[in-house]
């Protein structure tokens, strides 16, 4: 990490939007004690803290990339709100919260009847694909970078190149996935 001292919320947002991954390490360090304090006060254990902080920082990274993102509070407050959601989700997973989300369950059943794909196989195919394609698709689908940022990061000529390349990479990936499945895996 090459960031020394405390940096402003605006600069953090700017760095996230420009896709500077080093800011993730700064955010992790900056908000670790804040999130840790919250988790320990709410029935959490030491061993889960690092994972929650990690997920929180990555979620912040993704949210800032969204076009709708608008920072209306302090970044620490916003980050703590994400951490709270992550921790409550974790508690739900542990069945500490006994509420059953019927609608969510129904939708899950419905989606499972629609497609029956082995998720781990897709992950493996993605990992093995061409690096530029993998990065391009990751930047677009996960990081939410716009075409301009992707072009800069991957040294493409312009945004049109990004658009066409993105389609080609996805098509290739889809073909590879389909080669690993039979037709009856789908509806």
């Amino acid at each position, binding site marked *: *990490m090459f960031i020394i001292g405390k940096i402003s919320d605006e600069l953090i947002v700017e760095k996230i939007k420009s896709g500077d*991954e*080093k800011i*993730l*390490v700064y955010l*992790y*360090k900056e908000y670790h004690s804040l999130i840790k304090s919250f988790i320990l006060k709410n029935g959490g254990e030491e061993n889960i803290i690092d994972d929650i902080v*990690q997920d929180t*920082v*990555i979620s912040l*990274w993704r949210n800032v990339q969204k076009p709708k993102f608008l920072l209306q509070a302090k970044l620490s407050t916003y980050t703590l709100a994400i951490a709270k959601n992550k921790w409550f989700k974790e508690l739900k997973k542990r069945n500490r919260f006994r509420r059953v989300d019927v609608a969510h369950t129904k939708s899950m059943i419905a*989606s499972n009847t*629609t*497609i029956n*794909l082995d*998720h781990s196989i*897709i*992950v493996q*195919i*993605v*990992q093995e694909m061409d690096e530029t394609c*993998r990065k391009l*698709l*990751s930047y677009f*689908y*996960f*990081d939410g970078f716009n075409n301009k940022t992707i072009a800069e990061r991957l040294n493409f000529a312009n945004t049109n190149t990004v658009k066409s390349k993105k*389609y080609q990479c*996805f*098509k290739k*990936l*889809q073909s590879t*996935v*389909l080669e690993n499945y039979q037709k009856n895996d*789908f*509806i």
Partner: protein
Amino acid sequence: MNIDQKTYDLINSYLLGELQGRKLDAFKAELKTNKNLQEKLELQKAIITGIEDVRLNELKNFLKDNISKKQNTKRPITKTSLTIAASIGLILVIFFSIKSLINNDNDSSYSSDYQDSLKYNEKTKALENQKINQVTTNTPTYPENSIDTQLLAIAPPPNIELSDEETTELNKELAEYKIIDNEIVEENEIAEESEPDSESYDEIQDKLMTQKRSIDYSLADIQPTRNDSLVQMDQLIATTFKSVRSFSNTETNDSLEIVSNDIKPGSTSIQVTKSRTKKSKKFTNENLTIKLEYWNSVIGFNGYKYDGNTLQLFGIAQNETVNLLSLDNRLYLKKNEQIYSIEKSSSAKRFTAVTNSILLKILHE
């Protein structure tokens, strides 16, 4: 299941929430009826989820790597300290290894030259025996050719073969050393010396006595030993037997009265003593004999140890004139007109000079 770019972009827009209004309604209507579109949508969703998972893991690994690197770089001082400590340890190990090698070299040279030292010891053995025979007489004389046993333990330096002339020169130097030592005693510097621990000193004495008896002054029996082991022991220089001049207490008191009566203005104490000697025989020879041992202390101790039969003297050379006096069953040592009281004790004591003028007058007679 090929997908064209238009469908791909449409599904992307739907999944990313970018479709709005009529476009969104149209897509939903199409999705309800078009199974092919449903398949494409499901497949695209599954692939996008896969891409997201891969990227999530990638970022998590990036964070883990960088945070662990930070934690590692947080402890450069500890690492540096460990490195320095290890370096110092290594240097010490090398130093002691070299030192031991050097010592081994010295030992080996010592061993190679040990024959020379044995020759030297054989030559001095005769001298030593001669010295012992001489000091067992009542008239102790310090032989010029005698050699301090403590110095005998020190092997001659390597590659130096001592000739007879060199041996004689060495002995002369040793004799001079003795004379210098005697001068120090004469200057009455005994009281300025620090008193050694009597218990440890006794232990050393016991060990020394046992060793001396077992060795019996036979230098041929001395095993090759490192210099620093034998140098630290006291050495018995000589043994002699001395008769004690005894004084009668009652007669002395009487004589004191006489002395006081005889004192005249202007007369000296020596004259008084002389006149008193003529008038009464105050000391008699009762044939009391005490074994006198001359010891050389490695710690420079000046004093004595008296057990009733044997008087061990430290810091006094055997060629010095020493007389023993007894008054009221108390023993006194007279050396160079200085008189010291000798007390019976199991531990070593320092010389205590007698300061009582009346007692000194009596004892000086």
